[in-house]
């Protein structure tokens, strides 16, 4: 994969702790950074803290201790509009109420750049138009958001986040409802975006997409980052077995040498039982 310099940190999360009220689960002192030009894949089993980490990094929830910096600035001291001009956050569970059209939803991404009544300038309209094209939802611009399929909605919401013109994107399972073709297109788009200089952190359960498209991988388990490194270093039989348990096999791609993750045949486990 493309080598990146990774020298300019856009977002850095420093030692954040978080505990949900009324629950024993917690995220333990976690740090990571997103730099210009890199895609970070965040993986881990259900309930490992991936979404919580993104919510903390985007300032949607406030850490019990620790800090999040956008460039040099502590986001706790920034206004939401200021944050949104730099950071785009794609939540996992955005459900639309009321019948907004697709272009209205994408135009909502211009909120941090407008004030008052928020009427869009010609420049804003241009940005909205470009984002509709980039996310391949231009053809639905007049349709109601609520009438689209799950995958189409995810692409519209991505366009809406892109309309913020952010420097860093935090995406929480943005491809969970996309078909394979659109998943690949989505990650290719991310590759294009990071080539333009933005940084991306993406939570996903699709380990192959992480293997092929991310520059770095964070692996979480039980509220801690347990592994961090290049896909080839992290996506090994051993670490996956430690984190997810039995049930996955890994082979290497014949030309790129990147790990490909397959459902396990179970033969290894059976052998261990019988012997």
């Amino acid at each position: 994969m493309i080598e990146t310099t990774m020298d300019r940190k856009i977002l850095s999360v420093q030692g954040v702790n978080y505990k949900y009220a009324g629950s024993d689960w917690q995220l333990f002192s976690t740090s990571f950074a997103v730099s210009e030009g890199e895609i970070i894949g965040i993986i881990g089993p259900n309930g490992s803290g991936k979404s919580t980490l993104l919510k903390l990094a985007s300032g949607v929830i406030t850490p019990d201790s620790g800090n999040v910096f956008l460039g040099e600035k502590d986001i706790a001291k920034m206004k939401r509009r200021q944050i949104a001009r730099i950071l785009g956050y794609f939540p996992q569970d955005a459900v639309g109420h009321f019948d907004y059209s697709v272009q209205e939803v994408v135009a909502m991404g211009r909120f941090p750049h407008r004030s008052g009544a928020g009427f869009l300038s010609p420049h804003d309209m241009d940005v909205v138009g470009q984002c509709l094209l980039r996310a391949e939802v231009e053809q639905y611009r007049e349709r109601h958001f609520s009438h689209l399929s799950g995958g189409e909605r995810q692409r519209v919401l991505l366009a809406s986040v892109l309309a913020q013109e952010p420097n860093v994107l935090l995406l929480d399972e943005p491809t969970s409802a996309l078909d394979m073709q659109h998943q690949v297109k989505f990650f290719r788009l991310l590759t294009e975006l990071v080539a333009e200089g933005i940084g991306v952190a993406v939570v996903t359960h699709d380990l192959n997409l992480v293997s092929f498209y991310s520059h770095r991988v964070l692996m979480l388990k039980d509220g801690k980052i347990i592994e961090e490194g290049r896909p080839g270093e992290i996506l090994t039989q051993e670490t996956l077995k430690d984190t997810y348990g039995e049930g996955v096999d890994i082979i290497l791609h014949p030309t790129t040498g990147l790990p490909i993750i397959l459902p396990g045949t179970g033969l290894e486990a059976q052998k261990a039982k019988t012997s």
Partner: protein
Amino acid sequence: MTGMLTRKRFVLLMAGYVLLSILVLAGAPFFGSERLGLDNVKNALLSHIPHVDADIFFHHRIPRVLLAFLVGGSLAVAGSSLQVVLRNPLAEPFILGIAGAGAVGAVIVISVPGLSIHFGPFSSVQFFSLLGCILCVGAIYWLARSPLGVSMNTILLAGVTINILCGAAILLVRYIVSPHLLVTMDRWMMGGLDVVGYRELSGLLPLLLPGLALLFLQGYALNQLAFGEKMAMGHGVNVASVQKQVFLGTGLTTAAAVSLAGPIGFVGLIIPHAVRRLSGVDHRVVLPAAFCLGGAFLTVCDLFARMVVAPTEMPVGIITAIIGGPVFLRILLKKNRNM
């Protein structure tokens, strides 16, 4: 309606709604159970010749029409905002118990003679209904912000429960209160727009104006909240602040409406839905448009209330309930089908 809201489109749409409001406001005072001689009204206005028709026109009908308009408009704006913040198309001040709680406050003042204090155009009725509304709005806010994640349907049911409790509290007051106050109380409870003058109208403004201002300012941000709190925060909305201002604004406007007109139901439900169908879901239009259409709607309802059973009058709350009940059921059934 799927077009994007531009300044031009906004002005055109609002011009339509304002025109409708002006037509209704200008026309309504000429109708009523009493047929007025227009010449008498004209002479009184231009040549200062006193006449009973002019008295009815200027001191009874105009303030009444203005009150109907302000109350209808306020309830519709409150309903529109609550529906977005609670992400439930059935939310409105009456169904959520806010109007009921305001009514309890007002009924207590009406029935306990010592509590009824007047200072200029203001009275303790307004203060106590504000107290009731704010307590109820506070409870809903607390439920909505709960970290345990209370569902929006639970909040609606909680509102229905508050309404039942308020009903019981009012029955208790009725039971205790001396019989000669019962008639006053009953008429007020049914939602009536009679017996107001300019004095009482001006007494509404200290609650109504800040309340409406708070709500109107949230229009742009409310669009974002329709996609959930996380998405809205991601787009740069200070969600907690918007929610607080909406709940406070709703409390103020509902208290103002209830303190003079009693708990009038369903205007806050019917009008926002009508407006969204007519001119789209962008809340920069929905809120001011709901004010115009809500005002016009209640004014026309009141006109019916004054004319259908002439020479007596019917409380306007009965008419809004007759229209609103079926609308509520229709939205409820449609919502359940979509789930």
